[in-house]
């Protein structure tokens, strides 16, 4: 850029017409070239802008901030604690689902099946009631399983209805 181009660019700068790129060009030009006659003030101004742009924080500033943030990282320890709870919730859900599976196995043929577990109870109805009581006990001790407990109870109610229907139909058939 020759002196004439420089003066034209400066006029545009004073009029607020220059882009950021052109303003960077002005700064760089005055830093790297001897000052043309009559432009000493502008040279000083752009040198001032360049120098001010070099002001920086002390070298250890960033490490001090990082150290301070890391000191607050007991948040990450409680994050580990918090992260444990989803796992515990998963175990609760797994336990409830297992209970549902066991209950459905027990309830599949409530009356007269030789494959039913009769080791503990001779009366399947008693076994059914006992199973339901156990599952309800498990679920009430697990807060997170409440939703699934409600589902289990609905399942249990459905089984009751089916059982009644089966009993009625057996009686009618006999």
């Amino acid at each position, binding site marked *: 850029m020759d002196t004439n181009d420089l003066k034209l660019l400066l006029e545009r700068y*004073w*009029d*607020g017409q220059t882009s950021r790129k052109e303003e960077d060009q002005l700064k760089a030009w005055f830093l790297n070239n001897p000052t043309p006659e009559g432009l000493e*003030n502008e040279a000083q101004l752009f040198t*001032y802008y360049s120098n001010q742009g070099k002001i920086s*924080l*002390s070298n250890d500033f960033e490490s*001090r901030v990082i150290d301070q943030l890391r000191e607050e990282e007991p948040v990450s320890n409680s994050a580990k604690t918090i992260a444990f709870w989803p796992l515990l919730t998963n175990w609760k859900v797994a336990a409830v689902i297992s209970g549902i599976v066991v209950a459905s196995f027990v309830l599949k043929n409530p009356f007269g099946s030789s494959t039913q577990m009769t080791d503990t109870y001779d009366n399947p109805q008693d076994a059914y009631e006992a199973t339901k009581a156990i599952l309800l006990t498990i679920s009430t001790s697990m807060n997170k399983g409440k939703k699934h407990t409600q589902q289990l109870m609905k399942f249990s109610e459905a089984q009751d209805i089916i059982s009644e229907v089966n009993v009625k139909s057996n009686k009618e058939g006999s």
Partner: protein
Amino acid sequence: MDLEVFQNEVLPGKNKYFRYSQSITGNRELSEDIVQEVLLKIWDKRSELGDVLNKEAWCMRMIRNLSIDKLRVKANQGESLDKASNFYDPGPSPMEVTVNNEFQHSIGEMINKLPDTQKEIVQLRDIQGYSYKEISEVLSLDLNTVKVTLFRARKRLREQLKTINIYGYERP
């Protein structure tokens, strides 16, 4: 946002935040504290940063607000700030007073005497290199106001420069 992202996306702007703060407070130590305080606040609010489109402008707004607040508190307490530390020291020996230093000091004085908004826009545009759009976000001004204010600031500086001789002193 984890610490690594904070280091890569927020911390790199620290020197810009510092220069801007110092242009308001004129005090290096105070501005360093301000930048540290703002960075810690940003870390505390990191969950909200995902909603912020222009993080740097958001940080600069926090820097500006806290710098003005601290300056106001200091003024109310009757404390004067060492404004001399505002200027860049090119590093001459203590025994040497150079023509350049005097001129640079004069330019710093001229900019400091601009009306606040003009001074801030000169700082953000001519020193920090922000776009008009970024400046409008930091200062909560519309684009036209930013352009007009910058034009007025430069016009004022150009007139004042004519009053300074080559040695940095006002012409008689």
